């Protein structure tokens, strides 16, 4: 049986070797063509938010500014389906404000006329989730050169880099570098796409959404530079993706302290039981080979035969 198993092992190893050789041969004879994205794609720019780190908390004023950017800019194309108006409490709005935000929302909620049963729409209520800007995917694509603006509810969890990625995309629009076109003449950004080195394939369908300073007039008077608006939008999307972040951090701190105390007490109980009472025992000892050698050396030193 051992022989058969050894043979199977050798066969697998042999086929792997063939795969390896053929892979290397292919690589040497026809090396893969370099892609513009391999060279010009950039990792997200660093972004520091107050919600970062194990003790991070949301900056509610920033979230409100970010919500304003979403309302006035992003929401023209992007839905926020998983978030309800009532959730805005987490941004520091009170019930009356939330009611007003819901009923003033630019798109209405599909409904049924209670008298006739005909389909109609009504104003949004705090219990509704944000109504999407387009009725369905076909409508969304038709309005956006056949590209589908993704839902933003989970965006900062659904992309590597999270908030930093969102911030980098929003501020990363730029003309295609001359270098790139010189090296990869075929990689010219196609019409209706926009060059953005932070996007995986460098060309994103979304046109630059934040173009001019002062595009949004912040209610709290913060100067609305493009960079500031991008930061605030990213911070807001951290909240939409993880509205329980503050609770999570607070619970976490308490649980860690609790378990730390539990671990220490448990260790002391264990230590007393094993090492300090008259029943005390040694768990390991001269049994391990290195300890055997040590004890032999010790014996030789002390002039004890053995």
């Amino acid at each position, binding site marked *: 049986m051992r022989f058969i198993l050894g043979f199977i092992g050798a066969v697998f190893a042999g086929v792997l070797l063939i795969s390896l050789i053929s892979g290397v041969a292919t690589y040497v004879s026809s090396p893969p063509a370099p892609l513009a994205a391999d060279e010009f794609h950039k990792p997200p720019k660093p972004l520091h938010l107050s919600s970062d780190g194990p003790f991070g908390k949301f900056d509610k004023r920033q979230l409100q500014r970010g919500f304003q950017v979403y309302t006035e800019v992003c929401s023209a194309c992007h839905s926020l389906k998983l978030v309800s108006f009532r959730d805005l409490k987490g941004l520091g709005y009170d019930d009356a404000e939330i009611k007003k935000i819901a009923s003033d929302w630019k798109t209405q909620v599909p409904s049924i006329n209670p008298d006739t049963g005909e389909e109609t729409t009504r104003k949004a209520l705090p219990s509704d989730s944000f109504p999407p800007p387009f009725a369905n995917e076909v409508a969304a694509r038709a309005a956006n050169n056949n590209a589908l603006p993704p839902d933003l*509810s989970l965006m900062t969890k659904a992309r590597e880099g999270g908030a930093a990625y969102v911030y980098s995309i929003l501020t990363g629009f730029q003309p295609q570098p001359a270098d790139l076109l010189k090296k990869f003449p075929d990689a010219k950004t196609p019409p209706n796409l926009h060059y953005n080195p932070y996007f995986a394939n460098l060309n994103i369908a979304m046109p630059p959404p934040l173009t001019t300073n002062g595009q949004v007039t912040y209610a709290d008077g913060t100067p609305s530079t493009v960079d500031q608006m991008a930061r605030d939008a990213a911070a807001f999307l951290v909240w939409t993706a993880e509205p329980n972040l503050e609770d999570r*951090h607070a*619970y976490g701190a308490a649980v860690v302290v609790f378990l730390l105390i539990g671990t220490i007490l448990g260790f002391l109980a264990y230590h007393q039981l094993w090492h300090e009472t008259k029943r005390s025992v040694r768990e*390991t000892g001269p049994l391990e080979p290195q300890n055997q050698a040590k004890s032999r050396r010790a014996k030789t030193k002390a002039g004890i035969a053995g």
Partner: protein
Amino acid sequence: MSFSWAKAYEPKHPLMRWLDDRLPLPRLAYGAVGGGYPVPRNLNYWWNFGVAAGLFLTIQIITGIVLAMHYTASADGAFNSVNQLIMRDVNAGWLLRYAHMNGASFFFIVVYIHIFRGLYYGSYKAPRELVWMLGLVIYLLMMATAFMGYVLPWGQMSYWGAQVITGFFSAFPLVGEPLRIWLLGGYAPDQAALTRFFSLHYLLPFVIAAVVVLHIWALHIPGSGNPTGVDVKDERDTLPFHPFFTAKDGWFSAAILLAFAIVTYFAPNYLGHADNYIPANPLATPAEIVPEWYFWPFYAILRSFTVDFILPAKLWGVLAMFSSILLLFFLPWIDRSPVRSGSYRPVFKRFFWLLVIDVVVLGWAGGGAPTPLRNVISQLAAAYYFLHFLVILPLVSAFETPLPLPRSISESVLHGEEAEAAPAGAKPRRTKTATAAAE
């Protein structure tokens, strides 16, 4: 159960006596994890991961049952029931979900350590072959359960992971494709697949729990192994499980829970993949499809076969991947060395650590996009994996000269070694230094 000096259960309270006469459950618990189970006194901390695995199975079952109360197993509703209802609206739903997500990862972490402990200390050798094999059955069930659980949120990686993994079956000629369609209930993962995965994901943990009972039962016949691999000889070699090992497992499990809490509360998505927060879309393949981290070494083996040599490359990959686990069932007969513990096997020990490095490298290779360099490393590492178990291990066990074993566990543990070895009249060194210090 195993040793003649094992203490018998003696109920003191009349109620317990009454119960013991009718349904001796406390007697069972006493013999299994109480004072009635003698355990070798020299266990080190690598022996604490079995109890930790039981702990995480319990955590998974409890969080899972509550999550199932809020989850909707429908292709239209699954993603929202997880990411809207559970994560936002259910009280502490985010905690249940993150604990369940990371609990799966920690279950695998402690089980991998448990398995490698068994590999190093020869825990698979006679008379514990069935303990080892039942453990492997648990591991296979865990993999199936984890895979189906990962499908349930119906994100992009859920969907495409299901597509890839059920695609394994289609590698087999003739029966493969019909089998795959039968298993999925369709040509691609959809409603039928999701509901049956949910049903099985709820069932399998209880099957695991049942096999765990068998695993522990089979363990209690010969009793636990120990770091020397030397058999227990008499009462001096053992300590009762309770209170000694309950105390040791207790504080160590709390320490593992601490690590679990830190990840769950402060980096809950660290071990996951961002793409699973995108709803499943059968029309858009993700840039790269990768399974959860605990499958990466096997995924690397699967992908390493790139050439149709007699058989199609995909079939080679699938066969090799299944073999990589199945061969472990033969381990008790592959490794012929009568010495159990790797501590006394100088050659085996080196190859063991090489295997650990190899599996880590395979994990790295399986977790990233297949670049030419990664492919080469992955192929070498996969080849070494098979050579290690099927060629190197039998040879090492045949030719290696092991170090001398201690005569018994207690001999050295109980400080008796020096006194015993010393000729009459000679003072042991320890006493000498102690006297010197006193002066």
